[in-house]
């Protein structure tokens, strides 16, 4: 499986990019010990004109490179944690719906459908606006709008797996429903969940950056979306202020998508070489 993943050029590039981004995020305090908010040079310093400030400075003279590296932390953290929370909501709900069927299924799916109808970015905006923008509220809002596809996926997988013979065997062996679900059924639905999770981290990073672009970022945490949002009004005079953070988001999200596709091909080999979407 690892060999199949490694033979996918895009996926390997994705992993390399992601490792670099993680490395930069982890060493942010070493590389830029003064932090992203410190005013270190004159404002509007054009990139590639002064040593030590390769990406220039912003409207207040803050180092753009420092902002990018510190912003990587927020993006990765929010992306990862919100995905974990979304899985924690979606997996149990989908599993119960798919395994028990009947009214549990009916209720859970109505609930999921309701959340799928609501425009998810608008809901995220409303949640963060009302709960005040903090890392916690942003992460929860993203999780709340991202779990429905997980629930649907897990439900479908569980429904397919629970009809297999080894599940009947487990039942004959006298295992409880709960043991069968957690011990026999769910482990066999893990690979599509992993693929979906890697793509969800990418979507969550985009969502977080969009929220902070609108001014709904945590005011205490430098983030890529905030940098672009703050530079929006000066785009005519200082293109680099919005350009570089956007490239950072694009590259990180692209890397995660490539990894997701690679995982998909490696974990579902019968689907690979068909160019699944």
């Amino acid at each position, binding site marked *: 499986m690892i060999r199949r993943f490694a033979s996918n050029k895009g996926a390997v590039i994705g992993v390399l990019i992601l490792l670099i981004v993680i490395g930069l995020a982890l060493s942010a305090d070493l590389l830029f010990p003064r932090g992203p908010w410190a005013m270190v040079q004159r404002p509007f310093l054009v990139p590639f004109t002064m040593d030590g400030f390769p990406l220039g400075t912003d409207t207040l003279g803050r180092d753009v490179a420092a902002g990018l590296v510190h912003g990587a932390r927020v993006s990765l953290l929010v992306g990862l944690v919100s995905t974990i929370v979304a899985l924690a909501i979606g997996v149990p709900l989908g599993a119960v719906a798919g395994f028990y069927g009947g009214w549990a299924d009916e209720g859970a799916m109505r609930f999921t459908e309701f959340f*799928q109808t609501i425009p998810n970015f608008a809901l995220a905006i*409303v949640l963060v606006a009302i709960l005040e923008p903090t890392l916690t509220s942003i992460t929860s809002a993203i999780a709340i709008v991202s779990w429905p596809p997980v629930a649907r996926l897990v439900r479908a997988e569980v429904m397919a797996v629970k009809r297999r013979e080894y599940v009947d065997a487990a039942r004959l062996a006298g295992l409880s429903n709960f043991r069968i679900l957690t011990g026999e059924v769910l482990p066999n639905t893990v690979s599509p969940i992993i693929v979906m999770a890697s793509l969800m981290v990418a979507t969550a990073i985009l969502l977080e950056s969009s929220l902070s672009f609108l001014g709904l970022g945590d005011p205490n945490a430098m983030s890529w979306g905030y940098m672009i949002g703050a530079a929006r009004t000066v785009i005519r005079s200082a293109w680099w202020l919005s350009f570089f953070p956007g490239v950072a988001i694009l590259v990180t999200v692209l890397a995660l998508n490539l990894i997701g596709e690679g995982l998909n091909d490696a974990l579902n080999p019968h689907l690979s070489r068909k160019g699944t979407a």
Partner: protein
Amino acid sequence: MAVLAPILGRLAKALITLLAIAVLNFFLIHAAPGDPAVVLAGEAGAADEQMIAQLRERFGLDQSFHVQLGSYVWNIVQLDFGYSFRQGAPVLDLILERLPATLILTLTAFVISLTLGIALGVAASARVGKASDSVLTTLALLFYATPLYWAALMAVLVFSVELGWLPGFGYETVGAGYSGLARIWDVIKHLILPASTLGLFFMAVYMRMTRASMLEVAQMDFVKTARAKGLSGPVIRRRHILRNAILPVVTLAGLQAGQLVGGAVLTETVFAWPGIGRLMFESLAARDYNTILGVFLVSAAMVIVFNILTDLVYRLVDPRIGARA
């Protein structure tokens, strides 16, 4: 009647969903830190003591929780979304005034992304494995990872600031006084950049989906039969494969409509497009919760309408669905 019945069913379901969102809104107001009356009045200092007292009375904040819930939902049912103290007008008026601009923008983006996405997906699947296929797939992958608002900003930078081809701001040229066709042309010029940047991401989604779906259907037996009959490649692709491959794309497009409406908040913010998304952005800074929640409800209603419309398209593309229902 056979055609109408499922649509009536959908409408009933839509109303229930909207009521549920109204209830959700009510709980959100109470989840906000602080007194709900002050929350609704907006924190911009626009409301005086008397207004807050009026609000308190109107929402029955001195009454029990379920009475409050009932009166809130009843107001929404009567299309009374409250008053925006910030803008000095009823929220419903603000929204209705700006809704046409958003409808034009999202519908244009939807049509552009769906037609281009399907066309490019078909083109890529016809040349699978060749260089042009790789170029298209790579582009789709890039667009798929591009933040919508950033693509919009870069489009303004390139096409409006640097090249000066298209306006990057607003809905029409202010003070130009165009009328008739000249005005329509002016609006179209203003529409090109917002609609295409909003559609870009979705175009990538539909293209990938179309390509995958085309390749999947191409493996099926009836396609082999068609080939064995001696039909030419393009005819098979158009009449046999595309017809079947397009169904999941239309389904997906219906589901994605919600994201299109949400994305309009970003696009309208960048382009100062006077729609409800821009209204929401302005209300965020002012903490005008009444307006935010009103826009939220209306955008959910828009999504439902989009979904019902795609359902109708679906019936046109695949008559079997109508027969079954």
